[in-house]
């Protein structure tokens, strides 16, 4: 049983005009096996939370703490966080020309586990995981994310989640831009990982539709850089009906 604990987290982003505060005191505790959905309007800071947890250099933590089983996550480099068991499925996965998916997956797995996976077992595991996510076997020899469609990129992210077996996975708008079939395939992958590894999931989304496939235990509404309201799955249903308008200043609207 692991615990990821976020306490009073304040984060600024570098802009041309100087540091701009985005997160203004986030408190959140996630335990193994739990699924937390973070929902909120555009610009509320959801993705900033994801990037800051992974250690993206553009985001500066100005105060607060993040611990993983008591270990100070904020003191770790990006790669150390991943090796400690954090995984970020990115909203916009990056192309890495000339680096094949197969080589990338093996290199990352070796780094995370501390030693190379046994060749035969690994090849079989990768093949099986790709089949489950309906990723054609030819992708193993293609360059990472290069020329992938939006849906292929997202499936490749979830492939990594299944293979790397993190303690906590942050899914940053993994559902954005997916058609219904792809959304189902991706959600099945997340659910498989939940069943097989007891991973704790932080599911960041703008929409409620992914919550039909991935059932959250807790729903947090993010507004203006902090959590404005918390509840169970029923909160998501309410957001589905009402949108985010009641969380926003009078006179403004947001699409849900």
């Amino acid at each position, binding site marked *: 049983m692991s615990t990821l604990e976020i306490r009073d987290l304040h984060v600024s982003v570098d802009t041309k005009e100087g540091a701009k505060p985005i997160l203004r005191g986030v408190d959140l505790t996630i335990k193994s096996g739990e699924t937390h959905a973070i929902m909120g309007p555009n610009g509320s800071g959801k993705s900033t939370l994801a990037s800051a947890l992974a250690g993206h250099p553009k985001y500066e933590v100005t105060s607060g703490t993040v611990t993983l089983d008591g270990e100070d996550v904020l003191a770790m480099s990006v*790669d150390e966080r991943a090796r400690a068991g954090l995984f*970020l499925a*990115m909203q916009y996965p990056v192309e890495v*020309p*000339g*680096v094949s998916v197969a080589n990338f997956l093996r*290199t*990352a797995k070796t*780094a995370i586990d501390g030693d190379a996976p046994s060749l035969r077992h690994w090849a079989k595991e990768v093949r099986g995981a790709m089949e489950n996510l309906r990723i054609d076997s030819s992708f193993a020899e293609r360059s990472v994310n290069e020329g992938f469609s939006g849906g292929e990129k997202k499936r490749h992210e979830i492939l990594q989640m299944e293979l790397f077996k993190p303690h906590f996975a942050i899914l940053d708008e993994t559902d954005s831009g997916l058609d219904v079939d792809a959304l189902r395939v991706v959600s099945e992958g997340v659910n498989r990982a939940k069943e097989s590894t007891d991973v704790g999931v932080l599911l960041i989304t703008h929409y409620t539709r992914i919550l039909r496939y991935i059932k959250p235990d807790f729903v947090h509404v993010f507004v203006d850089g902090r959590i404005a309201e918390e509840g169970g799955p029923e909160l998501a249903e309410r957001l589905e009906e009402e949108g985010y308008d009641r969380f926003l200043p009078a006179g403004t609207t947001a699409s849900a």
Partner: protein
Amino acid sequence: MTLTTDHSRATADGAHSHGVVPAGSRAERKTSFDLADIPVPTGREEEWRFSPVARLQPLFSDELTGDGVAVTVEAAPEVTVETVGRDDERLGRTGKPGDRAAVTAWNAVREATVVTVPADTVASGPTSVRIDGTSKDATASHLLVHAERHSEAVVVIDHRGDALLNQTVEVLVEDGAQLTVVSVQDWEDGAVHASSHRASIGRDAKLKHVVVTFGGDVVRVTPDATFTAEGGEVEMVGLYFADADQHQEHRLFVDHAVPRCRSRVTYKGALQGASAHTVWVGDVLIRAEAEATDTYELNRNLVLTDGARADSVPNLEIETGEIDGAGHASATGRFDDEQLFYLMARGIPEIDARRLVVRGFFAELIDEIGVESVEERLLASIEAELEKSMSVITGAPAR
């Protein structure tokens, strides 16, 4: 920051060229065997405007009398090697010198090495030409690689040590021959090297011309390829890696003077360290008579650290509308921090992540070389180069 031009769909266009358009076309550039015709450059000339002319000065002298390199040839059994006098009639058949360095090299040289692949012969292994710098006396040297009709061979020219070398490499590919020439510039730090490669490609002949530049203080290679009959093909591949204060310049000229020939140029370079400077200029001329020409050239540069500079200038001149294809692309980009973040977010340490990205950048090109011993050495050299920039990250002292 990424700068790109991509004119892959460029079609007939009398004056399609980029950068500072040279005075007149490449067709009108002065070429001559006579020293008096091509004066010592000031640095303002089109062909010297990116070059550190002062550092190259020793090579412009009309008295390049030094004996600063040792040439050792290990030939495939089918291949013959001779040392001949400068008056040998086989020399000077691949075109005239096109700049001051080339014309001084031609005039200064007393003897030449001639490597011949006899007609209808397939060499059973690569032929190695080692050029070892032994002193810093400014030296001229001349090599002719002659692939006779329907022969096939691989010739690797390997430059090491320290030297001030002004060199001519003539490549004569006769009808139906298939030749690969690889020139590796793996000099020690202080070397200054100007090299004029002049290739002549006959009917249905194919030349693969590979240039690999890692070492030296100043290395300036100017490969010219001229088609003399229909059906010829040239593939020009280059890979370079410049460190602090190094100047590496590659200026290519493909002369489509006859119909139905094909050229492909692919050069890629990486730069790291203050005042690392690379120059790539790719001139392609499709003359009025060169119908059904098919040409494409590409240059990519990866800037790994601040303070390095990559110049990239593709020039395409097209004098006929009856071509199959003509295009070019050039891009210079900084090391992508988002790529680094992506790989590190998967647990891969920064050093390994950088290595993956740079290896990935060169991977495709290395596969194209097709000479296994060279490919392996290249991978090792890239690793060694990366060690230098990695020292910044690991805290180990830089070289």
